[in-house]
């Protein structure tokens, strides 16, 4: 039951977020809606029992990529209306109903995810008994090192390449 | 004796190879020309050796009147192997051929040797040996004609000789009259040759072969009976046409105008070609096709032509003052005698006269050349040829004088010389024919009168030139004494030796005395027995047979006939002939001696005045001087009157109509077609295909260019669409 509700919430967040990303005119709003979508996807991962995946999704995607996007938008002056809407002369409000609802939604989902992950903790264990919940972390870790070590290593090199490449491409001072 | 082509072919091929080599070698000048001359003389000498070998085999070996050797190869066959319309080339040697070969080669050798003396100063042996080049070609052609076994090859060699004659007459081509003379010679003989070819073709069409052997067989088998061409019996038609070739080549009555002008050539050429061999080729041809002439009842016609020629030329020769012109007309006259002999039926005598005439006429010409060469006019720097300027030369040129007298006596018909033997026999046979029917009296009379005139004018020539007082002192003084030089005098003496009658016949009348004794045949006349009319009945089995894949056939007649004392006649006829011949011989002797006597009276002892005769027959004299106006007839009558207007008409047609309408009209048509083609090219090729291709490319380019818009979102859409399409298609 709990799972169904969480599924519905996460699904709704995903689909709604994606729809709104597609249709919103404002680029910043689109990024925020993307964030919502990513939270929803994370929740979906949680309902699937992929706890590690959900956590990684939150950390990397929601915490990394979107922030990166936002930085890039701001660096390239992507959204002109942003300056008009929330200009210096106007008092920046804390947000509208929309933003708060979105945030609350996200919190709910996140909490659900964490609760799902940490659900076995709330059981009482007799002293000396290890918690019987199984996370996928251990299995994924084992798989990474044994079966898929090649992909693991190559992805590490890829990340190195991406890091160096990104730094080199956008290096200031490169003449035309 | 088994003859192969290789034992006979050198006769023709040696001079021919000499010609080919000399054509390149002789032009070089200097030592090369000397080598070329030597090669020419050596080649003809080699041919004479082969000819002598054949002669020896025929005369001293297989002695039979109808023995012959015939070798054949197929030149081309229009029926593809069926021999229906095949032309087979080959050699045909019978007794007549053997004798003729010897005569031609030996006389030609002598003339070549003489030419080394005569042509020595004419710009290095005849303009760098050109003379010898043509002489070699000529001798090879003549020998080929003598050896040939069919009319086609006769015609080929005939024409080749005509070309050589043209080249040799025109040897001194800077003089305009020489060029005209050579063209005149060629054209006149050409007229005869056209009819000759017509005769050959008519013969070929009806018989299917042009070989002599097949001709004789066809006559024997009666292939000619009842066949007519244009209403004329075939035999007559063919015989007339072929005989017209003889008329042209042997300078008989209507076509004799070229021979006097042929004297413009060098004297050795005149000796060889226009005395001994080429003009004799016409008579040789007539002798070969004699059965056809007999079958076509042409004897009287031939005899009349011969008689007219003999007498006409003799009369013209009476009034000539040029040394060589007298000899030229005498040649025409003697050729007339030969043709008269053919017509009368004395096959043997005509051929003998051919041989003897060749020898003494060649000697006469060479001697004349020697005389002319020695007489030099210092004013005009030319050699003197006019007899009025000669006289008394016998003191200066003894050898030439001696040789010329031998030959003159021979031609005059003095007994014990060869000319008497042959000419008398002709006249005797003519007399026999005259006793049979009156119409033969005319040729006979012409012959006898001509004999008288022959003796007269020849001796006149001799007396004017060699005897008496020198008329032109300057010329006489500058004339060199004659020393014996081997290449000038040896040929003369050699030839004059053979003017004796003993070589040809042992008797006065040429009947019945031993010349060659043979165990089989007893005593007989060699020449008279050797050469006889081809008996066509012996050829019936020799006609065209299936070759069965082989392309040579050898036909030897192994039959040796017996010497017929009566020459095929019964006893009474033979006695009659013998009797008439005796009468004719006596008449000939008187005529000859009479002619010499008259000439001596007029020119040697100057008792009778020739001027008297000239004045009495003044108009006739002038006619004779103009050669019966025959040249004028041809030039003014035919050429200027007929041919040139016709030529103008044709040229008007050609230029006015053909050039203007046909040729230029064709150009107009072509130009129109060119415009059509240009329109087509512009429309279809240029506009549609070439420009159209470009336009269509550009059109599609506009459409296809949008694919590469550079817009990323377009590319993404395309990718998605293609993937979805691929998934759907699966």
């Amino acid at each position: 039951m709990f799972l169904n509700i969480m599924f519905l919430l996460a699904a709704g967040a995903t689909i709604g977020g994606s729809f709104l990303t597609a249709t919103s005119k404002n680029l910043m709003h689109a990024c925020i809606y993307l964030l919502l979508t990513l939270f929803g996807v994370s929740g979906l991962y949680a309902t699937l029992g992929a706890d590690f995946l959900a956590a990684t999704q939150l950390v990397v995607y929601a915490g990394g990529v979107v922030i990166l996007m936002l930085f890039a938008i701001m660096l390239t002056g992507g959204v002109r209306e942003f300056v008009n809407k929330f200009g210096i002369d106007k008092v920046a409000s804390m947000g509208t109903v929309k933003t708060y609802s979105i945030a609350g939604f996200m919190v709910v989902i996140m909490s659900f995810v964490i609760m799902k992950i940490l659900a076995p903790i709330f059981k009482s264990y007799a002293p000396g008994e290890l918690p019987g919940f199984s996370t996928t972390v251990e299995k994924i870790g084992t798989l990474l090192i044994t079966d898929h070590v090649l992909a693991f290593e190559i992805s590490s090199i890829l990340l190195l390449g991406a890091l160096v490449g990104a730094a080199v491409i956008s290096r200031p001072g490169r003449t035309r | 004796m088994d003859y192969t082509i290789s034992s006979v072919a050198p006769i023709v091929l040696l001079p021919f190879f000499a010609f080919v080599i000399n054509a390149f070698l002789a032009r070089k000048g200097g030592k090369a020309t000397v080598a070329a001359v030597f090669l020419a003389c050596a080649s003809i000498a080699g041919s004479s050796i082969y000819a002598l070998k054949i002669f020896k085999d025929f005369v001293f070996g297989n002695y039979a009147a109808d023995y012959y050797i015939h070798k054949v190869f197929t030149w081309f066959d229009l029926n593809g192997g069926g021999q229906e319309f095949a032309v087979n080339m080959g050699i045909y040697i019978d007794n007549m051929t053997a004798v003729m070969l010897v005569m031609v080669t030996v006389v030609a050798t002598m003339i070549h040797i003489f030419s080394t003396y005569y042509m020595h100063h004419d710009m290095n042996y005849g303009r760098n040996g050109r003379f010898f080049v043509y002489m070699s070609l000529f001798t090879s052609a003549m020998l080929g004609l003598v050896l040939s076994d069919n009319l086609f090859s006769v015609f080929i060699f005939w024409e080749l000789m005509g070309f050589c004659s043209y080249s040799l007459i025109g040897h001194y081509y800077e003089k305009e009259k020489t060029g005209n003379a050579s063209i005149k010679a060629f054209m006149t003989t050409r007229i005869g040759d056209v009819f000759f070819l017509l005769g050959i073709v008519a013969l070929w069409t009806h018989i299917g072969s042009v070989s002599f052997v097949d001709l004789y067989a066809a006559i024997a088998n009666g292939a000619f009976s009842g066949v007519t061409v244009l209403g004329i019996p075939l035999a007559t038609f063919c015989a007339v046409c072929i005989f017209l070739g003889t008329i042209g080549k042997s300078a008989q009555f209507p076509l004799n105008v070229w021979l006097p002008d042929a004297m413009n050539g060098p004297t050795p050429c005149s000796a060889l070609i226009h005395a001994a061999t080429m003009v004799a080729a016409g008579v040789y041809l007539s002798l070969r096709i004699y059965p056809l002439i007999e079958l076509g009842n042409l004897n009287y016609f031939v005899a009349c032509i011969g008689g007219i020629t003999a007498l006409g030329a003799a009369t013209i020769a009476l009034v000539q003052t040029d040394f060589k012109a007298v000899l030229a007309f005498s040649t025409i006259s003697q050729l007339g005698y030969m043709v008269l002999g053919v017509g009368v039926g004395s096959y043997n005598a005509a051929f003998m006269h051919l041989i003897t005439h060749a020898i003494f006429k060649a000697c006469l010409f060479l001697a004349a050349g020697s005389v002319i060469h020695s007489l030099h006019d210092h004013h005009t720097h030319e050699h003197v040829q006019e007899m009025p300027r000669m006289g008394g030369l016998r003191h200066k040129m003894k050898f030439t004088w001696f040789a010329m007298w031998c030959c003159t006596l021979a031609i005059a018909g003095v007994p014990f010389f060869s000319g008497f033997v042959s000419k008398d026999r002709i006249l005797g046979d003519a007399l026999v024919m005259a006793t049979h029917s009156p119409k033969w009296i005319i040729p006979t009379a012409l012959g006898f009168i001509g004999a008288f005139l022959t003796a007269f004018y020849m001796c006149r020539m001799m007396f004017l030139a060699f005897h008496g007082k020198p008329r032109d002192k300057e010329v006489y003084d500058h004339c060199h004494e004659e020393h014996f030089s081997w290449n000038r005098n040896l040929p003369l003496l050699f030839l004059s030796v053979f003017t004796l009658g003993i070589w040809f016949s042992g008797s006065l009348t040429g009947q019945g005395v031993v010349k060659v004794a043979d165990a089989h045949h007893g005593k007989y006349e060699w020449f008279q027995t050797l050469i006889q009319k081809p008996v066509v009945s012996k050829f019936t089995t020799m006609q065209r047979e299936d070759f069965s894949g082989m392309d040579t056939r050898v036909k030897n007649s192994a039959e040796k006939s017996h010497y017929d004392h009566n020459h095929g006649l019964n006893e009474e006829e033979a006695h009659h002939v013998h009797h008439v011949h005796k009468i004719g011989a006596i008449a000939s002797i008187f005529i000859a001696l009479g002619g010499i006597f008259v000439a001596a009276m007029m020119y040697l002892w100057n008792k009778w005045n020739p001027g008297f005769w000239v004045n009495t027959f003044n108009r006739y004299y002038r006619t004779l001087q103009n050669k019966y106006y025959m040249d004028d007839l041809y030039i003014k009558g035919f050429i200027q009157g007929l041919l040139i207007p016709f030529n103008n008409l044709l040229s008007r047609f050609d230029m006015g109509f053909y050039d203007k309408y046909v040729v230029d009209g064709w150009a107009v048509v072509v130009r129109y077609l060119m415009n059509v083609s240009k329109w087509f090219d512009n429309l279809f090729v240029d506009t549609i295909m070439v420009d159209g291709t470009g336009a269509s490319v550009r059109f599609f380019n506009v459409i296809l260019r949008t694919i590469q818009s550079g817009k990323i979102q377009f590319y993404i859409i395309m990718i998605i669409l293609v993937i979805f399409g691929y998934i759907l298609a699966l």
Partner: protein
Amino acid sequence: MISLPSYLIISFCLFIAGLTVMIARKNIIAMLLGIELILNAAALNFAAYTRFINQNLDGHLMSLFIIVIAAAEAAVGLAIVIRFFQIKESIHIDDATELQS
């Protein structure tokens, strides 16, 4: 009620949305957002299949790698965008038509 098709439908909707963003928007960074949505759709798909069909966690790993790659790609992509902005002074997609024929 929670079954494989429902996750697939969600994944499908995410994909469509991402595709729409990529095609329809004219801002390069917006297109990158679309790319992220698409990648997430794929990862969700993998994870769903692991749960319902194949239980050996290969799908989870694939999703993990997708996340890693997506992060790297976002970094490099944004670096390119910044470079593009430095050159062209614009981040409109229609300005990136150097390959136009």
